Every structure is written in C-alpha cells, then in structure tokens.
C-alpha cells in the first residue's frame, strides 16, 4: 500500500503574525516557516501505518514555493520515503491545491491520502473535502483514530458533541485532527538520510492544472487588541451582564 501525505509550509505557530502595511496579507519576509502542525500529525499517522507493516511507501507532497522543499525534507527526516513538490510562486487556494493533488494522485496511484484538517495560516479547512469530491473517493475528516484494514479503514471522527466512527473503503481521503497522535521529533541520522532521499520538483505549468484564484482578498487586518476585563461582584451580576450587555446568553 502506498500513502500520500500532503504537507504545507506555513508561518511557524510560535511566530506572531504581522499584517503587511498595505493590508494585502501577512508579512512572510524573514520569518520562520515550518510544517503545518496538522500535516505533521498526518505524516506521523502515515509512518505509524507503515511501521505497523500496513504500507510500504509514504510519499510526502507539497504545493507551493521552492522553499517548501525544506518542509518535504522535514517530512522525510520524520520517515517519509520521498517527496514531490509542485512548484508555484503564485498563491494557491484550496481548490487549486485539491486539483494539483488530484494530478499527483493520478500519477502516483496511492491507496490512501492523508492531509491535515486545515492549515494554520488561512484555516480554510477545505482541501481534503474538495479533493475527495474531485476524486470521487470516500472521505473521513477530523480523524482522531485511524485503523487501516484490508481495503478499508475505520476512522473515528471528532464531531460536534462527540465522536463518530465510520468505515471507508480505500482509496480514501482522511484529514487529521489534533488528538490523532503526537508527531515524533526527527532523529539526527534520519535528518542526514533525508538529505539523500529523492525529491521531485514539478513546475506547476507542467501539470496543465488551472490554478487561477477564485477568491479575491480585499483586505487583511490585525485582530482587535483585547481590552482589559472587569471584575464582577456576584454571579447575578455576571449573568445579567452576559445577558444584557454582551448578549451571549
């Protein structure tokens, strides 16, 4: 079995995002970038499935700028066998990413595709679902447990109000939630090995996929600074304020 894992290069979760002066987006110059944390979970899950003897190849795929090769090396240092980058300097929105992944899937023919449920930069939470639709494959999103069997997988999903366990036939798309696993840290020998693992770079133009943005960003703003709170003297006052001032209950 072959597993494809999608990994995105995003602003590191420890870095405070700053909006560009012209409000066109978040300033990414000279800031630390790293692998989207949900994708790390996806890589970890793919490796665990492979280490349990249920898969023989884990291929990491990224879509975006040339530096995303570093993200792929990170995935390979964790244990992925090889990497594929579809290189594009242009902004790639979820639909474009899903279409490009479809292009890669048609070539690679994986039995399972794992993605993070969302990327922490734009928080779209769309790519996995769109990909499943484009492939006409079953999807299991927000996975907190994955059990791969013969030709199918049992997936426990985090849904509003609890957990739901479903079975999907393979090939399928699974998107990972936070509690699925705790990703490993790369060991030094694996970091060194990752430098020698194969990494294919495919220019986006060679895919023939239309990646034109369908959404236009009008303006990006910093969230409003939080103002200081107040202390209430009784539960009644709290309930009153929540009801009549904040109007949240």
């Amino acid at each position, binding site marked *: 079995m072959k597993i494809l894992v999608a990994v995105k290069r995003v602003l590191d979760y420890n870095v405070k995002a700053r909006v560009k002066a012209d409000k066109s987006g978040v300033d990414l110059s000279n800031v630390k970038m790293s692998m989207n944390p949900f994708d790390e979970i996806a890589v970890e899950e793919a490796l665990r499935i492979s280490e349990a003897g249920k898969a023989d190849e884990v291929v990491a795929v990224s879509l975006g700028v040339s530096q995303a090769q570093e993200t792929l*090396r990170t995935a390979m240092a964790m244990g992925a066998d090889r990497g594929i980058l579809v290189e594009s300097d242009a902004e790639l929105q979820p639909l474009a990413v899903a279409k490009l992944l479809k292009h890669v899937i048609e070539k690679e023919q994986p039995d399972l595709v794992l993605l993070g449920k969302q990327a922490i930069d734009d928080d779209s939470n769309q790519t996995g679902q769109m990909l499943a639709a484009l492939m006409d494959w079953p999807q299991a999103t927000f996975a907190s447990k994955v059990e791969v069997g013969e030709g199918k997988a049992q997936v426990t999903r985090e849904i509003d109000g609890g957990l739901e366990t479903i079975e999907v036939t393979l090939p399928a798309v699974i998107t990972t939630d936070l509690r699925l696993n705790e990703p490993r*840290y790369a*060991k*030094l*020998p694996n*970091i060194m090995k990752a430098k020698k693992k194969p990494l294919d770079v495919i220019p986006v133009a060679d895919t023939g996929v239309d990646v034109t943005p369908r959404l236009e960003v009008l303006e990006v703003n910093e969230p409003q600074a939080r103002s200081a709170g107040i202390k209430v003297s009784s539960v009644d006052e709290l309930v009153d304020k929540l009801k009549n001032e904040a109007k949240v209950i």
Partner: protein
Amino acid sequence: MNSTTVAAYEDIREGVRGLCSQFDAAYWRGIDARKAFPEEFVEAMTQAGWLAAMIPEEYGGSGLGLAEASVILEEVNRAGGNSGTVHGQMYNMFTLLRHGSDAQKQRYLPEIAAGRLRLQSMGVTEPTTGTDTTKIKTTAVRDGDSYIVNGQKVWISRIQHSDLMILLARTTPLEQVKRKSEGMSIFIVDLQQAIGNGLSVQPIANMVNHETNELFFDNLKIPAANLIGEEGKGFRYILDGLNAERTLIAAECIGDGRWFIEKARNYASEREVFGRPIGQNQGVQFPIAKAHINVEAADLMRWRACEEYDSGRNAGASANMAKYLAAEASWEAANVCLQTHGGFGFANEYDVERKFRETRLYQVAPISTNLILSYVAEHLLELPRSF
C-alpha cells in the same frame, strides 16, 4: 562562513529544539532542586543520535563536524537546558577520532553510536597542580601488558554517568623529559572495571549541580592496549582536542546568551512599574542591547573557529578567542538578565538564577579566562613568557 552556510544548520537546530521542548524549564528546575542527574534527557539525546553526531557513518554515527556539534550544544542551552550534562562526549570524541587506533575505534565507536557506551569523562585536572597541567603527579607505569596508575584527580565530571574516561597521566617523570609537555600519555579507562579495583570516586557537592568528582588511583591496572596514540605524546593530543572543546564551550555560552537576552527582553516588555514597561527606560534597554551585540559578535568568532577546525587548519587562536568572547558575553547577558528581573530574578521559578550559576562556570572551566589571555599574550602576540 556566510549566513547561508549558517542557515544550512537549520534542520539540526530544529531537531534539537524539538527534543529539548520535551524537557522544559520545570524539568531542569526540578533536576536542579533535587541535585539529580537528567538521565531521561541524556537518554533522549543519545537515542536520537545527537551525541553520536561526530562519529563517522561507517561506525554508526552521522559523520558531522565541529560546526554541527557546536549547534547541537548551543541549542540545548538556548532552550534553557544544561549541555554540561552531555558535552563530555563531544569533547572527547575528537581525541578518540583523531588519535585512537583503528582497533580502538572499531571497539568503542559503534557501541557509543548505538548508545550502549558513554564516553562522557575526561580526567586532566589535579588538586595540587591546577592549571599548570604539565606538573600533573598522576603516573602510569608500564608493567608487561598493563599500565599501573597512581595519583589523584579533581573536578572530573560525569564519572557516575559514563562508561569510559580519557585519562591524562605521566608516563615519564618530569625530570627525565627535555620539554615539560613531553612524557604524558592518554588512556581509555573502562570505568565499570576500574571503580572498586584501584579507582575510587568521591563526589563534590557544588554550585551548579554538576556531577563532578574527586578520583583516587591506587594501583589501578589498565590494559596497555588502552593507550591512545604514542606513549609520551598525550599532552599534544589533549591540546588538539581542547581547540574543539573551547569552540563547543563558546557555542554553549552563545546559547546561554541568547536565552538570557530573550528572557530579559520578554520580562522588560511585560513588567510594568511607574505605569509603563520597564523596558521603555533606556537605562533598562541599553544593557540588554549591549549584551546582545556582544553575544552576536562572539558568535562570529565561533564560526571562524568551526570553519578552521573542520577544514583541518589550526584553530588555536580563534577557538581560544571565541571561548573568551562567548564566556564574557554570556556572563554579561546573565548579569543583565538578573538585573532586569529585579527581585524576581532570584526566585527559582524564573530559571534566571539557575542559568546565571551555570553560565558562570565557563569563565573558569574548562579553562579560566586568565589562561586564555595568557595564551593570546604569549603565543599570539609573543609577549615575554610569564610561566
């Protein structure tokens, strides 16, 4: 070494940071309070291959150089940890790699790389000779297939958590050698065999929770096969290893320095007195800025030392200067950080007082600041010798 080369170590930094994030400030604080040894941390560093970084790939290591080793130790200290618990293996490794025989490498390196043996200790310092190393009194006398060791050492670290020690002893009496630096040799000592059979260990309670000891040798027998290199040339081998050691210490200090600066910056930005953050006062800002400049300047000298060492050139001058600059800079940063924290700096839970104690060590060990100044004055500037 330009900034792109330095950026090339980002994957190593990331890896070490990831590991260190599992051993947070509370972990180190707890170890310090209990005067314990961070066994879990050392084990994790071993298992993840970081302490075998310099062992060649054919022996199961990663075959990296001093630059990478320095980044590993820097990141441990940068993360608030104490690389004094693991650095011995890095220091010693160059001695074994450069001067050990093929048989010795074959025997020890794969075991060290696999994490089954630790080479964390080096026995040089003695109570009555101190920095004047050529006057050491510990002797190793050849007796058939063995050497018999007698004497005493002090401040020998990590003995209780190591399997092997590199020992410096006199094999030819001082009176019988032409130059005082001749007639000393280095040996690999199997500690498990030695302790209780001619070697006794007396722990020294100390300021920095360093597992460090006094050693007493009473007719300790070590196989002649454990002599490293040629008899009588041990001091030269040790000196060669010291350039690596000094560069690594410099990197540790730079890690400390960056930890202190960040801690001071954060606290100065948050702590409000007189209705504004204390960091808004230039009297608070400027010392932090100055310490930052000194840490970054020291870092440049550290890269010069790494580059020279790794390309096989003589790194003596830059390694010593890097160690001096970095130890001064980290101590300045420590002092500024403590001052910035006011009274809270003295509270254990801020970790500043612990790191303050830990970084202070590097002005004294493994070589004191004065001795570096003496080296620069007499060897680089060729001023008259004072000893």
